[in-house]
C-alpha cells in the first residue's frame, strides 16, 4: 500500500511530537481577559502539543514574583505578563528576548499593532513584548442618571462639568455615588489615575533636572479637586478601591460615573455581569482647558525572559495569544464585544466589532490621544503618561500612593500629604542618584 509510509511517517511525527512535548510556564494576572485566555488555551495545546503550566496571580504578587525572578535570573517562567512600564526598562537591561520571529511573521502582521502601544513595548525599533490587551482611560457614565440629573454629557467634558455632574447625580439614600475613582494605594492603582489626572492640570512628577514637583500649585489643585470630588460624590471606603473594586461597584449600579481603564467597557456592558449593561455611555477623559486630557496608556503584554529554556515554543504561544486568529476565536465563543481590545488597528476597522462594541470608537480615540513622550503641559525628562519610566518609580509611586490614599481616608490633610510626598520623593531620588 502506498499509504503505509505516510501512515508510518505520521506516527513517527506524532511520537516525536509527544516525546518532545514541551511545557511552558506562564505567569499572568487574574484579570478577566487573561482568565478567558487560560480557558481557551487548550486549543493551542491541541494544535501544537505544547503543554501549558499556568501561574495566575493577583497583580501585586505577580509583579513581585516576576521581578524577583527576572532580576535574579531565576528561570522559573517562560512567559511573563508585564506592562508598558516594565517592558522598556527590562528590555534595556537585556532581560527580555526580542520577539524577532513574531515581528517577521507576515501572518502575525506586526504593523497591525496600534502604533502607540507598539512603541511603548519596543526599544530601538525592536519589539520585546506582544500586547495582549491595550487600554487608555475614559469616562463611563450612567445615561439614565445623567438624564435624571438634567445634564448631557459632552464627548469631551471638562473637570468642571464632571464635578457638577457628579454632585448632581449623587443620591446617597439610594446608594448611588456620583463618581467612583481609584483610591487604593499603589503606583499602578491610585497613582495611575492621579498622575494621569494631574497631567490635565498641568502638573508633572519632575522638572527637567529631576526635582520632584509636589510643592507646585498644579499638584495642589489636582489633589484638592480629587479630594473634594470624592468627599462630595464618592463611595464610602474609597481609599481601598482599586480598578476591580470600582468595577464591582459600577456593575452593581452604585456609580454615576467612573473614570478608568477602557477595557472595563466590555465588562460594564456585558449583561451577564452587569446590572446596568444597557445604560452605559462613554466620553473622553476630562481636561482643564490646558490641552491635555487625563487619559493614560497601558498594555498588558506577554514577554519571554532571557532565562527561558523554551524560547521558541514561548514565542509560538505569544504568537497564538496575540494574533488576529485569537481575536476571532474569542469572538466566535464569546462574541465580539468580549475580545481583548486595544491592540490591533484591524479590530477597530472590523464592522462586526464596531457593531458589537459601542465603546470601540471612544477607546481608539483615547488610545490615540495619549502621548507618553509628552505627557503633560510642561516639558519633562521622562517617558510615560501615568508612570515615570525609571526603575525606581515602582517604589516611589507606591510610597506617594500611600500618602494620597491616607489623605483620601481623611488621615492627613492634602497639604501634609503633598509635603510628605515631596520629602519622600526627594529622598528616594537623591538616593538613586538623579538629584546630585
Amino acid at each position, binding site marked *: 500500500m502506498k499509504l503505509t509510509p505516510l501512515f508510518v511517517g505520521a506516527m513517527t511525527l506524532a511520537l516525536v511530537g509527544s516525546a518532545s512535548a514541551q511545557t511552558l*510556564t*506562564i*505567569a499572568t494576572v*487574574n*484579570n*478577566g481577559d487573561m*482568565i478567558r485566555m*487560560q*480557558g481557551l488555551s487548550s486549543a493551542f495545546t491541541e494544535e501544537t502539543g505544547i503543554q501549558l*503550566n*499556568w*501561574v*495566575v*496571580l*493577583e*497583580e501585586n*504578587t505577580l509583579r*513581585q*514574583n516576576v521581578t*524577583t*525572578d527576572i532580576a*535574579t*535570573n*531565576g*528561570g*522559573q*517562567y517562560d512567559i511573563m505578563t508585564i506592562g508598558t512600564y516594565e517592558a522598556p526598562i527590562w528590555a534595556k537591561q537585556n532581560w527580555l528576548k526580542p520577539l524577532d520571529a513574531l515581528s517577521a511573521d507576515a501572518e502575525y502582521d506586526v504593523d497591525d499593532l496600534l502604533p502607540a502601544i507598539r512603541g511603548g513595548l519596543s526599544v530601538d525599533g525592536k519589539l520585546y513584548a506582544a500586547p495582549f490587551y491595550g487600554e487608555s482611560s475614559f469616562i463611563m457614565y450612567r445615561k439614565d442618571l445623567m438624564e435624571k440629573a438634567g445634564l448631557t454629557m459632552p464627548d469631551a467634558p471638562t473637570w468642571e462639568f464632571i464635578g457638577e455632574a457628579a454632585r448632581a447625580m449623587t443620591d446617597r439614600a439610594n*446608594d448611588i455615588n456620583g463618581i467612583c475613582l481609584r483610591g487604593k494605594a499603589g503606583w499602578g492603582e491610585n497613582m495611575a489615575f492621579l498622575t494621569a489626572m494631574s497631567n490635565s492640570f498641568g502638573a508633572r512628577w519632575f522638572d527637567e533636572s529631576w526635582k520632584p514637583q509636589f510643592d507646585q500649585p498644579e499638584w495642589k489643585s489636582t489633589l484638592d479637586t480629587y479630594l473634594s470630588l470624592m468627599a462630595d460624590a464618592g463611595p464610602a471606603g474609597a481609599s481601598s478601591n*482599586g480598578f*476591580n*473594586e470600582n*468595577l*464591582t461597584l459600577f*456593575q*452593581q449600579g452604585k456609580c454615576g460615573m467612573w473614570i478608568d481603564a477602557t477595557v472595563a467597557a466590555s*465588562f460594564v456592558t456585558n449583561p451577564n*455581569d452587569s446590572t446596568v449593561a444597557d445604560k452605559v455611555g462613554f466620553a473622553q477623559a476630562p481636561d482643564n482647558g490646558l490641552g491635555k486630557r487625563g487619559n493614560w496608556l497601558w498594555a498588558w503584554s506577554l514577554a519571554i525572559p532571557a532565562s527561558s529554556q523554551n524560547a521558541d515554543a514561548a514565542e509560538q504561544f505569544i504568537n497564538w495569544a496575540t494574533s488576529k486568529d485569537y481575536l476571532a476565536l474569542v469572538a466566535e465563543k464569546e462574541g465580539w464585544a468580549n475580545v481583548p481590545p486595544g491592540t490591533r488597528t484591524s479590530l477597530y476597522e472590523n464592522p462586526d466589532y464596531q457593531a458589537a462594541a459601542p465603546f470601540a470608537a471612544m477607546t481608539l480615540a483615547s488610545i490615540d490621544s495619549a502621548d507618553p513622550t509628552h505627557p503633560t503641559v510642561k516639558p519633562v525628562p521622562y517617558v510615560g503618561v501615568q508612570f515615570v519610566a525609571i526603575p525606581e518609580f515602582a517604589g516611589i509611586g507606591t510610597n506617594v500612593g500611600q500618602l494620597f490614599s491616607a489623605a483620601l481616608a481623611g488621615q492627613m490633610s492634602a497639604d501634609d500629604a503633598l509635603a510628605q510626598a515631596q520629602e519622600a520623593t526627594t529622598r528616594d531620588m537623591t538616593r538613586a542618584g538623579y538629584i546630585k
Partner: protein
Amino acid sequence: MARRVSTSTKVGFTVLAWAVALLLFSPILWTVLTAFKTEAEAIASQPTFFPQNFTLENFGAVQDRSDYFKHAINSIIVSFGSTILGLIIAIPAAWSMAFAPSKRTKDILMWMLSTKMMPAVGVLIPIYLIFRDLRLLDTVHGLTLIMTLINLPIIVWMLYTYFKEIPVDILEAARMDGAELWNEITHVLVPMAVPGIASTLLLNVILAWNEAFWTITLTSGRAGTLTAFISSFSSPQGLFLAKLSAASLLAIAPILLLGWFSQKQLVRGLTFGAVK
C-alpha cells in the same frame, strides 16, 4: 468528673459558651454558606443566610482557573514531609536535651527558638539566590526543606517538654537490660511518647500548611501549594465573592477536617511543658 452543679447554672454556661463559640466560628460559617450561593446572591444588598439557589458552579469555576488537586497534593507533601523530616532530626536532639541535660541545654533551646524570629521578608533575596543556584526554585523538595527548617525549633521544643515528663527510671531500666541506645529510643521512648509525637506532628503540619510567605515566593506553577492557589483569587474581579469563598473553603477544608478529627490527639500534647 463532672462537678455537681444545678441545671440552671449548666443551662446558663451552655448558652454563653455556644454564643461565644458561634461568634468565633461565624467567619468560617459565613464563608461556607457564601460558597454555595450564586454571585448575585452573595453580594445582594438584602443578604440571605442560607443559599436560596443552592449551586456548585463556584467550585467548577475555581477548578477551571486553578488546578485544586495539584495544589492540595503539594500542600500535603510539603506539610507532612517537612514535619516527618523535622521529627527525624528532632527526636534524637530532644532525647539528649531531656535525658542528658547540660548547663547549656536551656540556652540551646532558646537559641533554636530565636532563629524563628528572623523576618522572612528580610532574607528573601539571599534564600532566593541560594535556591536558584541549587536548582530548588519551584520544587516540592526545596519547599519541604524550608518548612523543615522553619518548624524544627518548635518540634524540638515540643518533644523536649514531652520527653521530660517521662520518668527517667523507665529508660534506666531498659538500659540495665542491656538495650542499645537505638533500641532504647525506638522501643521504649517513642512508644511511650506517641501521644506527644502525634500532637507535635499535628501542630507542625498545621503550621506548615498555613505558611504563606515562602510557599508563594519560591514557587511558580509546579510546586505551588494551596496558599499559592488562594492567591489567584485574592483580588476582586467583577463578581467574585462566592468564588472567593469557594476557593477559601477548598483551601482550608483538608486541614480543618484533619484538625477536627484529631483534635483530641492535638490537644493532649499541646502543653509545651506548661503542665506538670
